[in-house]
């Protein structure tokens, strides 16, 4: 079907002018968009108040579907669990036996740990989280990987704070508004996290790839000592994350390290806790040069 003729301006000067104005406004809008884009490239933080105001409004709305989503996830788990019950039962019994042995070992290690800590006079306990919140939204359409939580500067959040779930690291706080915050997840392609292999001190960087996997890049190149199934934990370097929190499991080996799967998969995470920055002095010292993005700096080095 051809275009309806009513949309042609014809000989009417008024109609012609209004069509022209429309084009003009649209072109100006595109230019405005390009200018805004250039500004947000040049000064990434300049629109934080605008985004913050929007997310302050949106995140309370998001609490409801987030609650429903975790409910529906558990309902699905119930259904699949019903079908897998037999095999799961046998597997769990086996795991239980192994876990008892490991528990005894862990008790012994804990005792030794306590003794050594007493020797060193390091009576540091678990860190109290700044806030606990539900992940209420995510950048599901964008190529970046962000999530939103319904707590903000009113609850004591500052940018850079590590975010973790009971399983391990989820990401870190990127932007804070009054009642909401934006979290950069580990899988974001701009996220870099210093890690080490649990068990020894093979240090590496865990970079997000944007598709759900982390790329583990060893700092000391040479013979690749990694094996599939290696667990990586935070090393504490950089000062943001406290050391020893689980990050990822290696699933594939590459010449300079490997690919790893997240231990704390954010899509299966309901509640997260936001912890204080581990060594704020170290973070402050690393920012003396004026670089506001530690990750960028580390990438270039």
């Amino acid at each position: 079907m051809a275009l309806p003729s009513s949309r042609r301006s014809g000989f009417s000067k008024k109609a012609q002018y209004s069509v022209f104005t429309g084009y003009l406004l649209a072109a100006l809008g595109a230019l405005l968009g390009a200018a805004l884009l250039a500004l947000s490239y040049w000064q990434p933080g300049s629109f934080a108040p605008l985004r913050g105001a929007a997310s302050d409004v949106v995140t309370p709305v998001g609490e409801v579907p987030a609650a429903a989503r975790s409910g529906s996830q558990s309902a699905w788990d119930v259904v699949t669990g019903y079908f897998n019950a037999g095999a799961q039962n046998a597997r769990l019994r086996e795991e239980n036996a192994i876990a008892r042995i490991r528990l005894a070992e862990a008790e012994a290690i804990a005792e030794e740990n306590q003794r050594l800590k007493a020797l060193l006079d390091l009576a540091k306990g678990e860190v109290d989280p700044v806030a606990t919140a539900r992940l209420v939204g995510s950048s599901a359409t964008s190529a970046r990987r962000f999530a939103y939580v319904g707590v903000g500067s009113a609850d004591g959040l500052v940018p850079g704070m590590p975010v973790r779930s009971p399983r391990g690291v989820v990401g870190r706080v990127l932007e804070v508004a009054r009642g909401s915050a934006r979290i950069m997840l580990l899988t974001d392609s701009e996220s870099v996290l210093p890690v080490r292999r649990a068990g020894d001190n093979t240090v590496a960087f865990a970079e997000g790839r944007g598709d759900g996997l982390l790329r583990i890049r060893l700092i000391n190149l040479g013979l690749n000592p990694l094996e599939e199934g290696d667990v990586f934990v935070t090393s504490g370097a950089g000062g943001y994350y406290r050391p020893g929190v689980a990050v990822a499991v290696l699933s594939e080996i590459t010449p300079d390290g490997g690919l790893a799967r997240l231990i704390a998969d954010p899509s299966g995470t309901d509640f997260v806790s936001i912890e204080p920055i581990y060594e704020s002095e170290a973070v402050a010292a690393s920012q003396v040069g004026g670089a506001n993005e530690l990750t960028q700096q580390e990438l270039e080095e």
Partner: protein
Amino acid sequence: MIDRRARPLRSARYRSSGINREASPLRALTVPYASILAGSLLPVLLLQADVMPLSPPLGFMMLLAWRLMRPGLLPIWAGVPLGLFDDCISGQPIGSAVFLWSLAMIALEYLEQRIPWRGFWQDWFTACLAIVTYILAAMALSRASVSTPLLVATVPQIMVAAVLYPLLARLVSRLDRFRLARTRRIG
């Protein structure tokens, strides 16, 4: 005494369409914009796709669907305010949707002057072209470091978006009927 006449039985049947009803101007004006804003909001709130970009850009697709189904209803500059809202919540740098949505509106206007015929398959083809271009351009503008794995990760998103467009076009035609339903009583 004269009894009061009973209400005519037919009135119930004609409640939604009668000679003394007309479309509510408020509804006629707001429905397209509200549905596009809802399209921007929905993937952010309802989908917890934290490992890869999975959800089609519903806001942009609603804009496309309205533009292709009802040409002339949205002004050409409609991409500016709607894109700004999308930018605020989508995680893209501010300005990316303002820029891309405006360009899309101008491009569609130009395309329509060049190729004035329309039809289901042609609309779908146009929409697919626009969606694929938009997703790739948005990725390039998102400050993410574009790598092969990231490109591979967007393939499912593009496929879902392409398949979803006809459904959204259906939804838009339903919404258009709702928009122009004669509900306001005059006289």
